């Protein structure tokens, strides 16, 4: 059966996302749009993963946990894990690799950590917008060693992508690559191409979800489908 997946979404913790992007609303809204496997991937941080995990459990969503790392090459890469605790630890490590620059709220927006009800628990004062001191190659190695998955984000975008910043997609053990438009004409070395909503606003949720062919909605089925290119796009 076809199972809706969306592996690229932001919450109110990401400086560029809307403050009403509560992790709980993300899970709820995605579930209403028939997505069964959903990831939260804030910029360089995983501080809203606990609320997201709780919300996923409440709405019967298979949560995938991680962040969108801005590497030293200023390339955006999704680092994803099955386990929320492993993901949280890894995301704190990524945060520790960021330059200590204070966020400027009126330019970049707020960076709020919330609970499942949307109550603000903390405002992150260090800018999450910077580049973490980790290379693409190092990130792929470290995440894979922890049992996670790396998916280069929006490889066909003209900013913060492998194609734009490096000029090519290095042939590394990614679980898949994410493109905004399919079919994607970038050389991806046979990797599975997925789409992701990169939702920063509630109305973005599900806009570029895609589907896997699997018997059940769970993390191993996702990994298997990505490895076997068992992917369908919207409208296909």
């Amino acid at each position: 059966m076809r199972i809706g997946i969306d592996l690229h979404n932001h919450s109110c913790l990401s400086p560029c996302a809307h403050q009403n992007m509560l992790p709980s609303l993300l899970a709820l809204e995605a579930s209403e749009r028939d997505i069964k496997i959903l990831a939260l991937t804030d910029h360089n941080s995983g501080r809203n993963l606990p609320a997201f995990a709780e919300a996923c459990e409440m709405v019967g969503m298979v949560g995938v946990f991680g962040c969108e790392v801005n590497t030293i090459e200023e390339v955006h890469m999704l680092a994803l894990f099955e386990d929320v605790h492993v993901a949280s630890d890894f995301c704190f490590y990524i945060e520790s690799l960021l330059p200590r620059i204070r966020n400027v709220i009126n330019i970049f927006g707020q960076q709020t950590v919330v609970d499942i009800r949307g109550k603000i628990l903390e405002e992150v004062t260090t800018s999450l917008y910077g580049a973490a001191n980790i290379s693409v190659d190092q990130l792929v190695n470290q995440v894979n060693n922890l049992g996670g998955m790396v998916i280069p984000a929006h490889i066909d975008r003209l900013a913060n992508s492998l194609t734009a910043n490096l000029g090519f997609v290095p042939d590394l053990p990614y679980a898949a690559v994410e493109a905004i438009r399919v079919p994607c004409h970038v050389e991806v070395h046979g990797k599975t191409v997925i789409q992701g909503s990169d939702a920063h606003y509630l109305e973005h949720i599900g806009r570029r979800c895609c589907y896997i062919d699997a018997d059940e909605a769970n993390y191993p089925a996702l990994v298997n489908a990505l490895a076997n290119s068992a992917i369908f796009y919207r409208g296909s």
Partner: protein
Amino acid sequence: MTYEKLVTALQYRLVADGDRQAVIEDAYAGDLLSDVMGNANQDSVLITIQAHKNTVAVASLVQIHLIVLCNDRKAPEDMRTAATEQNIAICETTDNQFVAAYKIARLLGKV
């Protein structure tokens, strides 16, 4: 001018050896490697802060003989190994890209 003469004149730290016979004719400053790939001339020096091995891959495509890493960025071991394999030299400096570009432009007779 060979890269050795250039690096000696600049007093930059050479951290990977390259093609000693290659003559450097031009230079390009850039951190967006897709731009470097599209616009750098062959037989150039690349002035950049991109201290990772993918810079070597791009340099080899456009026949860049020397990568100058600015702002005291250090070439990681895998970058130095890749550079040695591709016969591309790497040097490091505390100069920023503007200062390095000016010094190199003078040495190459571009200004």
